[in-house]
């Protein structure tokens, strides 16, 4: 189990500090695929960086802590301060737009060989890598290429190959398949699900595609303006979302053959620099009351294992007249 205890991550900027992740407390069960979704800029990538322990200026872990639920070589529990030692082998990370985090002037094969702590027999490593990338549908020659010679999708697959090669206990993947066509995406996600079932590792997957989350995840975390607003089993979240934002998110994408207009949710989240009061979604929520504007809702368990931060979570929506599309 990975425990996040009131995690606050901030960025120092010329205009002062903002909390891009503002007090997230959740427990991630072992061996589960956790999906993370939410508005652009709500703090998903920041949360991933915190989980990876990649906390570099101007970002700081302003308060809170993470317990990873496994021990290091000396038998001490791994925490936010020591997780860096577990990188690559036990905790791996596919950053967002990772297609440009490959080193542009080094051949792909060399980037595999350069992994810290690798088998010194380069030829043997390359043999293993070659076989592995084949499993992910990449041609062996792709290893000889420089990153710019591969399409965006191929680079993205290469990043996934690097992140899963050592079968780490925790895989953090930020939008790992957005650059891929849906055919390849499906193959990769099916493969990830199979690998995960075999190895029982934990995967945290950030995606904007609610369809991807529905297919792949066991649990879902929905974030809004730096807060966790809903957290629960995926079945429960998709069948009966508790937070109005989650409901709107699930129903906002069009589908093929359906010609109804989709408007998205009008307005924008509050600026994190401003004064934040009450529920951060209140301005855009069709059900907000005066209470929502002054009293901040906390994340509480409404059904077994299903949490939401809304004063009216799961309540019947008023007068049935509002359309969610």
């Amino acid at each position, binding site marked *: 189990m990975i425990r996040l205890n009131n995690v606050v991550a901030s960025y120092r900027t010329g205009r002062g500090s903002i909390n891009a992740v503002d007090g997230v407390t959740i427990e991630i069960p072992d061996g589960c695929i956790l999906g993370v979704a939410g508005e652009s800029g709500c703090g998903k990538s920041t949360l991933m960086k915190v989980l990876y322990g990649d906390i570099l200026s101007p970002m700081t872990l302003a308060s809170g802590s993470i317990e990873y639920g496994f021990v290091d070589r000396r038998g001490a529990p791994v925490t936010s301060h020591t997780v860096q030692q577990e990188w690559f082998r036990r905790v791996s990370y596919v950053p967002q737009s990772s297609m440009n985090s490959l080193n542009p002037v080094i051949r792909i094969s060399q980037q595999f060989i350069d992994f810290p702590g690798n088998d010194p027999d380069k030829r043997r490593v390359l043999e293993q890598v070659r076989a592995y990338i084949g499993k992910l549908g990449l041609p062996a020659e792709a290893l000889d290429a420089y990153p710019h010679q591969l399409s965006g999708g191929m680079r993205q697959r290469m990043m996934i190959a690097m992140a899963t090669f050592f079968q780490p206990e925790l895989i953090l993947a930020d939008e790992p398949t957005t650059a891929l066509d849906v055919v390849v995406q499906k193959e990769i996600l099916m493969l990830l699900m199979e690998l995960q079932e075999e190895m029982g590792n934990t995967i945290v997957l950030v995606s904007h595609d609610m369809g991807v989350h529905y297919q792949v995840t066991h649990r879902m975390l929905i974030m809004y303006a730096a807060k966790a607003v809903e957290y629960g089993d995926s079945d429960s979240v998709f069948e009966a979302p508790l937070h109005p934002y989650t409901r709107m998110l699930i129903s906002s*994408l069009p589908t093929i053959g359906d010609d109804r207009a989709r408007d*998205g949710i009008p307005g924008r989240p509050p600026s994190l620099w401003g004064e934040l009061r009450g529920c951060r979604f209140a301005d855009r929520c069709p059900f907000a009351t005066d209470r929502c504007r002054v009293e901040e809702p906390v994340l509480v368990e409404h059904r077994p294992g299903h949490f939401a931060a809304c004063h009216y979570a799961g309540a019947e929506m008023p007068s049935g007249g509002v359309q969610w599309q």
Partner: protein
Amino acid sequence: MAVILRTEGLNKVYRLGSFGRARTIQALNDVDISVESDNPVIIAVVGESGSGKTTLAKTLLRLVEPTSGRAIVYDKVVAGRGAQPGKREFLSSIQPIFQNPFEAFSRYRTVDAYLFETADRVAGLRGQAAEAAVEQALASVGLEFADVVGKYTNQFSGGELQRVSIARALIPQPSLIVADEPVSMIDASRRMIIINLFKRLRDEAGRSFLYITHDLATAYYISDFVAVMNKGQVVEFGAARDVMSNPQHAYTRLLLGSIPTTRSRWRPRKAAAAPH
């Protein structure tokens, strides 16, 4: 009727590797598409990763020289034999939104510098007029001017930077916007606001779009035409609704059948590995 976009036998061959073991990649293989219309249109290009979509876009933008064939945009030859020069006029009529906004902007300049540069060099706007145009473009993608100025790329989230990149392309009011995966990092709700903005720009401001995307549902939602690409070839091309409701090519069917929906699962989902 105007030729909004036409490609004639467009080919692009890339060479990979050193002389000894050189290998070639046919990124575009005899691409022939043609859209003539009196009204502005949205043309979607969908298909396989690595099938040549970005290469097609870069050819139209003159960033890649075709190996053979040519391309016409709004009745002007823009690539290949007989391409007319005139960079500034060209840029004011075609604007790109690049696939990866982190590559499109340098890490060492604040992003507003790009917005003002486009306003100045392409749209010929300076001073207050430039500021107003930049502010309006940012507002249309849901960003506040004050939240953008003075910031470097690494100070934005992926979706924010992608929206800055969209805003930049809107400033010169081009007749064709070549948008390569413009909403890939943007959440479902904001994505619809931007997709609706493209639609409005087509209907009210007369702009055409080449909309390259892996998101087939939004392609269906806004496009007039769609080209389906696989291995450098356009395997199916036609009116978006026809192609997507009644696909003829096996690859198009495979593509449409692979969209992750929230209605039925690809496979029964086993419980998480460890009980909780």
